[in-house]
């Protein structure tokens, strides 16, 4: 099972919200068995923690280099998240 981690400043607000939306989209795509989700803060995360990372545009330069990164312009635009996730995970 691959792991998707959302990252924000404190690790309890925005990242949690985006994680919920990801779970919803994974269910829609029928991929909830293939991926697990989690959330963290820029300070606590490491590149080893997950296979895919999702971060807001403002924080993309604050996290260590990771292999698979999705950068979101809006954290509540489900269409943007769905589109980027679908492209990324297919």
């Amino acid at each position, binding site marked *: 099972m691959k792991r998707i981690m959302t990252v*924000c400043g404190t690790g309890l*607000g*925005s990242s949690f919200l985006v994680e919920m939306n990801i779970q919803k989209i994974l269910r829609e795509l029928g991929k909830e068995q293939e991926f697990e989700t989690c959330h963290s803060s820029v300070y606590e995360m490491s590149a080893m923690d997950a296979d895919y990372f999702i971060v807001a545009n403002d924080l993309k330069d604050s996290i260590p280099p990771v292999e698979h990164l999705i950068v979101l312009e809006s954290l509540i635009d489900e269409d943007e998240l769905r589109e980027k996730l679908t492209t990324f995970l297919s």
Partner: protein
Amino acid sequence: MICAEILEEVSEYTQAIRKSCEILERYGMVTGEYYRGIIDNIGEYGGYFYLGEGVCMPHAKPETGVLSTGLCIIKLNTPVDFEGKKVRIFFTLAARDEAAHFVLMKQIAGICSEKQSLKKMLECRSSEEMLMMMEKEQ
């Protein structure tokens, strides 16, 4: 606990955050320290709690003065500038621990992720209407 208030306008965004922290403090959800905690966070990470679509969710770590989990929603009739973005809704969150604020986050996600709900929230004319919308998301 959730509280809500509608303000005509604020001179700067920190005023809206200050107001919501005062309300959270009045209901015993945070100490006076919490506002400072949020402002320090902005200094450190910039406007990271901007969610998009004119909505932001200011919050700081539990150890910066959170007494119990709660939320204060402030809606502005006139948008205010927040680090280059126009904001009309502030969901100021006080999170004691993850399990407790799960429900609140679900409610916020429910309102924000549906364009229709967000539009409806922006059209609310009273804090009661806003609180009723939040209740429906539970």
